[in-house]
């Protein structure tokens, strides 16, 4: 089904000049964001853009095992996102190079295939883009283009098996219902190699934290690819298409690319010629406490606290430093919600000396990958994961 949107009305509005007039503000700073909350979202979500909506999770939710649905970040690329969907008439189309093309309702998905649930981190590839130096264009995410949630749905591989990929199938594409006002803008479509799509991980999910997906997070159905950046987690999914050739769509072959270097880094002014699609997440930890610039009392106990995750091997260890990275101690790992979940960690610290201090955290995955202090840079601002350094004041 199609989202109910009307391109002509939109263009008529533009032609009438509604958006062309502006005030005499010369400061160039963004106005205070609208106080009207987004549907199903907290009023203090960080507004990056309204059309399409891009909203960031407030940082305090890094202290939660699961990110509540009303706090989960929102990221759309095309401004005509679905605004009206009937859950009884929605159909997922599964087709292409298959023996039995399918059109599945939500009820049929639930009834025909085993329902499964897992906890997984949903992180935008550009999370913390605003911290790259030199700065790069794009949505200037802080640390809140990430959340952790329990996803419920059916395994993609079961649905693909029902459709029966034919000999020669190599890749599977996933198309969302969102559209751009101009037909010339490529539709949002991502692809996975057939062996990834038929692996155990990917889900066609209708629930986030045991509730239907909010419209802003992809109701009625989204792809969940545990361990992979959420650019693959196509929202408002309408078509799954099996291909017998490599997909050449814009959102794989031009956008969401990283340098083909071992750590996805390149040097400003000497950009790598060869690029590849961004795929699995790297190991990463984020502080929730202390906050930058926080004043801590000398001689009093304080807790260093945060979360860590990788692409699904799990977190083996988180180390913290209170002297800028000269010496390290292990943090305690909290509840394990599964390998694709983030894991909360904490460590106790009693600062002694008054003055400035820098705390640092670095995580190591079960696979043995550790966050390295070498800053990572690339032109698109993806995959940042150097250890966070938080400057505080001991008073």
């Amino acid at each position, binding site marked *: 089904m199609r*989202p109910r949107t009307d391109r002509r009305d939109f263009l008529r509005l533009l032609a009438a000049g509604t958006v062309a007039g502006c005030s005499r503000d010369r400061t160039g700073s963004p106005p205070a964001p609208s106080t009207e909350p987004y549907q199903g979202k907290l009023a203090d979500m960080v507004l990056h853009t309204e059309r399409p909506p891009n909203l960031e999770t407030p940082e305090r939710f890094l202290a939660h095992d699961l990110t509540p649905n009303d706090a989960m970040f929102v990221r759309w690329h095309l401004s005509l996102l679905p605004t009206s969907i009937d859950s009884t008439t929605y159909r997922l189309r599964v087709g292409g190079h298959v023996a039995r093309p399918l059109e599945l309702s939500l009820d049929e998905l639930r009834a025909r295939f085993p329902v499964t649930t897992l906890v997984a981190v949903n992180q935008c590839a550009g999370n913390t883009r605003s911290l790259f130096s030199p700065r790069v264009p794009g949505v200037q995410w802080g640390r809140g283009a990430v959340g952790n949630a329990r996803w419920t749905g059916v395994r993609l591989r079961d649905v693909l098996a029902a459709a029966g990929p034919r000999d020669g199938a190599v890749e599977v594409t996933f198309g969302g219902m969102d559209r751009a006002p101009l037909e010339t803008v490529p539709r949002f479509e991502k692809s996975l190699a057939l062996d990834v799509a038929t692996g155990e991980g990917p889900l066609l999910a209708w629930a986030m934290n045991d509730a239907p997906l909010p419209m802003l997070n992809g109701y009625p159905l989204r792809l969940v690819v545990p361990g992979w950046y959420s650019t693959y987690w196509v929202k408002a999914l309408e078509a799954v298409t099996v291909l017998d050739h490599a997909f050449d769509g814009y959102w794989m072959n031009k956008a969401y690319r990283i340098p083909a270097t071992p750590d996805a880094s390149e040097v400003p002014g000497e950009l790598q010629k060869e690029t590849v699609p961004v795929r699995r997440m790297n190991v990463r930890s984020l502080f929730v406490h202390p906050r930058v610039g926080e004043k801590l009392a000398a001689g009093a106990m304080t807790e260093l606290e945060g979360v860590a995750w990788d692409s699904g091997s799990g977190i083996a260890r988180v180390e913290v430093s209170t002297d800028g990275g000269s010496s390290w101690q292990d943090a305690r790992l909290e509840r394990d919600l599964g390998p694709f979940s983030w894991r909360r960690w904490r460590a106790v610290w009693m600062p002694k000396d008054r003055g400035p201090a820098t705390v640092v955290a670095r995580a190591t995955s079960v696979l043995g990958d550790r966050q390295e202090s070498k800053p990572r840079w690339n032109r698109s601002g993806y995959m940042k994961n150097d250890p966070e350094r938080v400057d505080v004041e001991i008073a």
Partner: protein
Amino acid sequence: MSAALRCVLPAACGVLVACSSPSAAPPSPTLHTLRLPMEDVILPDLPGRAKVASACAVCHTPRYVLEQPPLPRKTWEAEVDKMRKTYGAPVPDEDVPAIVEYLVSVRGG
């Protein structure tokens, strides 16, 4: 010009459709809808603003400009080029220098 004309429009045109159908039947319980807040963006009043507002705002809020950090001129040139060639933004050749100039004056670095 008048002091306080703002860039205001519903953040998705689905909202317009909803508003223009007051006589529609009550929504079905199986119907899931999304209503988006109004868009309210003020672009700085510098030369080229009208061109930027009309060329860029077809597809996205002009807040994308204000969202950006200071960027070098050649980065802005590349952005305008990408919007035209890759996404088909309706920008005639002769408007490109004014648009780049505006972007550099607002978020140049």
